[in-house]
Structures are given as structure tokens and as C-alpha cells.
């Protein structure tokens, strides 16, 4: 039985756990480095100069704050709650990933690291990592599953333009989890000079907490902006969940506001009932240990990790950040799936009604909003994190819709 905590915002504990989730399950070679990283992060977090530099870059380089936009035509179309978009797709590089990358590159520099490695699924984190590495003059190696390299060609070329090296990973199924395995192998080999820039709020402690803190700018701005517009808190906040970094960034500042309903939307793929046909680790998985943390995982009965499936390369990951697993078990956040088909519909509706082509990842969150908004009163408000733009997805969406380009 789970005891309800007094606050949902105090985790993790000193060993890096959110309840039973999180921790530091890594090889001994990495352990001293992870402890160094934790120390460096704790020092940076208390250093006003670190925050000042990050804020300056966020404003002048990334384009923060991102607007909070009232989606008027979508609201009219659905005839229920008022829908707002937190427009993190307008950030430099086209997604929320830059928030975390700017924070971590400053930390890498502070630690004296001279080489950056990163994993990427859809390529958004790879592009953001390549971008900040270019900005700070550090060589960057991006590991990307060979399957994803194929389905996200524009982002592969972007990374190369930015001076990064992209290594296609063919081991395993050649998707995001295999890219992460390969990045960990690189890190364990080049531990002295290399900084591993993890893209989501997962991995060994302190990454889940650190990435959350860098992404919390999303929720903090949302709270201020919504209050400035409406003089109150929103009734519901919604975000998509792969590893869950944009979601934890939006959710965390609202966790101790009990009036705010919080919903995370996982990739339901072909459907939750289809074996290995979705990437909804919390709705359809069980707790396990992978990539340095304990969390909900897609796995078989023998503890072998499944590949999962999603139309969105960015949600196609068999795990999820450990804080989400804890928020699920405590009941503070509701996690629901949206299928490939529902996300594709939402993608098109948003493009036509709002003139905004969303990425396939937040299209999942939008798909849930399409379901819930009509059931809510017109004086209620929903904020959706529009975490990325859909330019990268137009080719694959055309493919799914049977259009030739």
C-alpha cells in the first residue's frame, strides 16, 4: 500500500529514489563518475552565476519564455474546456529538448569535460545536443538506432550540419534503447573526458532529478503565464510521455496544487492489448531495472526488455522516467494511452484548425485532449505542452496517410 506523502515535490531521497523507483544501477566503472556528477550538479544548483548564465542563454539563444497560447478554434471545435498550448515547439531547435541541453552543457563545461555523447530516438535530443555542443565548441557523438536513422533522415542531416558525428546503432532492434546502451558503452570506455548528455528524465541518479529541474521551466512559466491571463490555476495539465522529460517539466510545479488534474499520455501504438505493439510502459508494463534506474518497463516474464512500438520515434522507449512511475503509484498523476491512429488524427486536426503542425509526440497528448475537453465545462481550462514541432514528421506522416511526396 502506498502512503500518501505530504508533498510530491521533495524527491528523490539522498540515494536517488522516488519511493522504490530510480536509484543508481550502473557498472562500477561509472559509479565514481556518477557520484562526481551528483556533486557537481549540487554545487551548480546553488550557484547564482550558473543560473544567471543559463537564464541568459534560455532567453537570447533558445527564445524563452515560450508563449502560452489560447487555441481558440480547437476550443470552439470541441465545445468544452478552454484549451491552451504551452508552445515549447517554438524554442530554438524546435522542441523542449534545448532546455535540458543548455543546462547540461554548462555543467559539462564546469566539470572540465571535453567531449559530449548523447542518445537520440526521434533526433530532437540529438539535434539539441549537437546544437549546444556547436555553441560551446565541444565535439559531439550522437548514438541513434539504425531504424531511427532511416525514419528521421532530416534530423540526421541537421546533426551533421551542426558538426556532430552520428553513429547508427545496429545492435538489438536498432532503436532508442539500443542507442542508449551504446552511449553507455562509449561512456564506460571514455569515462575520463566524456560527458553523457542524457536527453530524458531517466537513467541513474542524478539525471532524473537534474533533467526535471532543467525542464521545470516549462511548468513554472505556464503557472505564471496562466495566472497573468486568468488570475488562477489551470484545471488540467496534459503532456505526452516517452521518457517523460517535457511532462515532468510541466507537471512538477503543479504537483502540490491539488486542484490541478494532471494527465500523462503514453504511446498506445497499435493498442494496449496488442502484445509488444505499444510503448506504454506504465499502462502496459511492470517495474524493472534498466539503464541505471528502477522504473516501469515493457518486458517479458523472464525480465527481457521488449522493443515496444509507436508511430513516434520519440516515444518508442520501453521505459519511463522513475519519477513518473512513482507519481503513477501514488495516484497523483493519471497515465493514459493514445494510439498511433488517434495521434495521427490529432496531428491533422491541430494543423488544420490552429495552423500549427505539431510533432507526433505531443499529438498523443492532444489526442487525449480531444477526448476529454468535450466532457468538461466551458469555464474549465486545459494546458497542453506542445513539446515539439512536426516538421521532422511530415515525411513519415505522408507515408502513413498514403501520400507520395
Amino acid at each position, binding site marked *: 500500500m502506498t502512503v500518501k506523502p505530504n508533498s510530491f515535490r521533495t524527491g528523490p531521497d539522498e540515494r536517488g529514489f522516488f519511493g522504490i523507483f530510480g536509484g543508481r544501477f550502473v557498472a562500477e566503472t561509472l559509479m565514481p563518475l556518477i557520484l562526481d556528477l551528483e556533486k557537481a550538479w549540487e554545487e551548480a544548483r546553488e550557484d547564482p552565476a550558473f543560473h544567471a548564465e543559463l537564464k541568459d542563454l534560455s532567453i537570447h539563444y533558445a527564445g524563452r519564455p515560450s508563449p502560452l497560447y489560447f487555441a481558440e478554434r480547437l476550443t470552439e471545435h470541441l465545445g468544452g474546456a478552454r484549451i491552451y498550448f504551452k508552445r515549447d515547439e517554438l524554442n530554438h531547435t524546435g522542441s523542449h529538448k534545448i532546455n535540458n541541453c543548455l543546462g547540461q552543457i554548462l555543467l559539462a563545461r564546469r566539470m572540465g569535460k571535453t567531449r559530449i555523447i548523447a542518445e537520440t530516438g526521434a533526433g530532437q535530443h540529438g539535434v539539441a545536443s549537437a546544437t549546444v555542443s556547436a555553441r560551446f565548441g565541444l565535439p559531439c557523438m550522437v548514438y541513434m538506432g539504425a531504424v531511427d536513422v532511416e525514419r528521421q533522415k532530416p534530423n540526421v542531416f541537421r546533426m551533421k550540419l551542426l558538426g556532430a558525428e552520428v553513429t547508427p546503432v545496429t545492435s538489438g532492434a536498432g532503436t532508442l534503447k539500443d542507442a542508449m546502451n551504446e552511449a553507455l558503452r562509449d561512456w564506460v570506455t571514455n569515462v575520463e573526458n566524456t560527458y553523457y548528455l542524457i536527453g530524458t528524465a531517466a537513467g541513474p541518479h542524478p539525471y532524473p532529478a537534474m533533467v526535471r529541474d532543467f525542464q521545470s521551466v516549462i511548468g513554472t512559466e505556464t503557472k505564471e503565464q496562466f495566472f497573468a491571463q486568468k488570475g488562477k490555476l489551470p484545471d488540467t495539465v496534459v503532456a505526452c510521455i516517452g521518457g517523460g522529460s517535457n511532462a515532468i517539466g510541466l507537471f512538477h510545479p503543479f504537483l502540490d496544487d491539488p486542484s490541478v488534474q494532471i494527465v500523462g499520455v503514453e504511446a498506445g501504438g497499435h493498442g494496449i492489448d496488442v502484445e509488444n505493439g505499444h510503448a506504454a510502459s506504465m499502462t502496459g508494463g511492470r517495474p*524493472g531495472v534498466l539503464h541505471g534506474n528502477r522504473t516501469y518497463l515493457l518486458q517479458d516474464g523472464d525480465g527481457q526488455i521488449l522493443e515496444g512500438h509507436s508511430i513516434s520515434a520519440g516515444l518508442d522507449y520501453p521505459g519511463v522516467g522513475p519519477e513518473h512511475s512513482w507519481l503513477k503509484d501514488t495516484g497523483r498523476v493519471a497515465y493514459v494511452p493514445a494510439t498511433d491512429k488517434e495521434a495521427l488524427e490529432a496531428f491533422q486536426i491541430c494543423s488544420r484548425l490552429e495552423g500549427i503542425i505539431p510533432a507526433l509526440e505531443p499529438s498523443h497528448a492532444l489526442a487525449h485532449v480531444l477526448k476529454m475537453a468535450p466532457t468538461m465545462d466551458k469555464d474549465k481550462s486545459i494546458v497542453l505542452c506542445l513539446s515539439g514541432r512536426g516538421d521532422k514528421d511530415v515525411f513519415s506522416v505522408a507515408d502513413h496517410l498514403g501520400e507520395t511526396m
Partner: protein
Amino acid sequence: MTETRISRRFAECAAQGRPALVTFVMAGDPDLETSLTIARTLAASGADVIELGMPFSDPMADGPAIQAAGQRALKGGQTMTRTLDLVRRFRESDATTPIVLMGYYNPIYVRGSEHFVAEAKAAGVDGLIIVDLPPEADDELCLPALGAGLNFIRLATPTTDDKRLPAVLANTSGFVYYVSITGITGSAAPDATKVAEAVGRIKRHTALPVAVGFGVRDAATAREIGRNADGVVVGSALVAAIAASLDADGRATAKTVPAIGALVADLASGVRAARLASE
């Protein structure tokens, strides 16, 4: 800790004035029956300790050779139950060669640590090496394993400094596995001088035998590394030899078992010569 098959075997090797040869193969690679025959062949050809890999879909600390071995085993239907069966059957004809299961935590976690250590002990397992369980996580599996009478063998690495070594060694038993390089299994050969220094450093902190692995692929390296270590671990080279002996569909051939026997005999001659050479 009381005497175990592992401590007895290292003591026997020390009495013979040589390091122990520790060999790693993946359980179920390329299939269950062949891997049982391989395990028996390892013992018959001069391996002193057998490490059996528990295949895992996401072996983050392993190089291509051992990754591929795990995938072959999983494709062949290997499960944890079968791995424990393999040990049980090995024990029917060999009561003395220590068996150490090596792998990653998740397949054990989903089975339940307490349940797993009892099953492993009953099957005849002597020790565990779990790559992704540092001493900070000792309550997960290490303490239950020690409670069940299994050795828990910890990896020490070039990044484990003197400050951290006592924590790493605190609950370690059986032997200490020194990872000779920062890297994954099957990487470049280690620098013997640096390894000797590191082994000396570890031995100042513990009375346990220290075995050295990662990057040892032939009798010459085994001999070189074995001069200053209590054991030499060979894994990727054996697994690669298995891979090279398979047919186009990944099935065992008549060459598979003899290839392993020959390689292990050669490695065994290497460790037996380690202290003979004039230094």
C-alpha cells in the same frame, strides 16, 4: 565467510603456484545442450572456475562478442529457469568446479531476489557477479545472496580509487574481479604493468584472491597478466570462438566443442607458465 568451492579452488591453484583460469561462456549459447557440453569441456580442459552468463536483452557493459552470444542464447529459447537447470545438470557430474552466474539485475529482480538466491544455491551455483549492482545497492541482492551462502563477487575498476575500494570490498566474497580497462568486455588488451600495480593496490585492502579480466584473449596475455594476479578471466575470446564454429544459421557444428577445448587447453598452459618464466 566459510569455505566455499570458490575459496577452495583458488587455494588449490595458489598451492600449485599458479593463477586460476576463470572462463566465461553464455548459458544457452548456441543452444542448451551444446552449452552444457561446453561447460563440461571447460572443466575438463583446464578451466578452474566457470562463469556462466545469464543472457539479457540489454547488456550495457558488454562488447559485440558477448552481446551476440546473449542474443543467440535468447533466440535459442534460453530462460533463467533453463540456466539454473544447466547448472543443476553440470553439478550431477562435477561436484568441485565453482560456477559463478554473471549478468544483469533485471532478470533476477523480476523473479524476486530471495527466491532466486534460494533456487541458485539449490542448483549448485557458488557465486554471482551482477554488473549493474554497485555496493550502494547491496540490499537488493548482495545481502540476500550472502545470506543464502552464495559468494557475491564485485567488480573493481581503474576508476575505483583507494577512497572507494573499502566500500566496494566490504561485502565482496569469493574473489575480486578486477576489470583491467575502462571499457566494455572484449576490448583492447590491458597494460600488464598498470594491471600489476592495480592488483597490488587492491591486495593492500583485502585478503581475497584478485582475478583480472576484460581484454585477455590468448595464452600469452593470460601468462603475462597471470604473473601478478590470482586469476585470469577469459570471456569474449571463448565466445568468439564459439561464434566462429557455428554454421550459417547459427547452429552448433562438430567443430564447436573441440574448438573451445583446444582454446581452453592453450589458455590453461598460459596460466600454468605464468610464474615459471624468469621475470
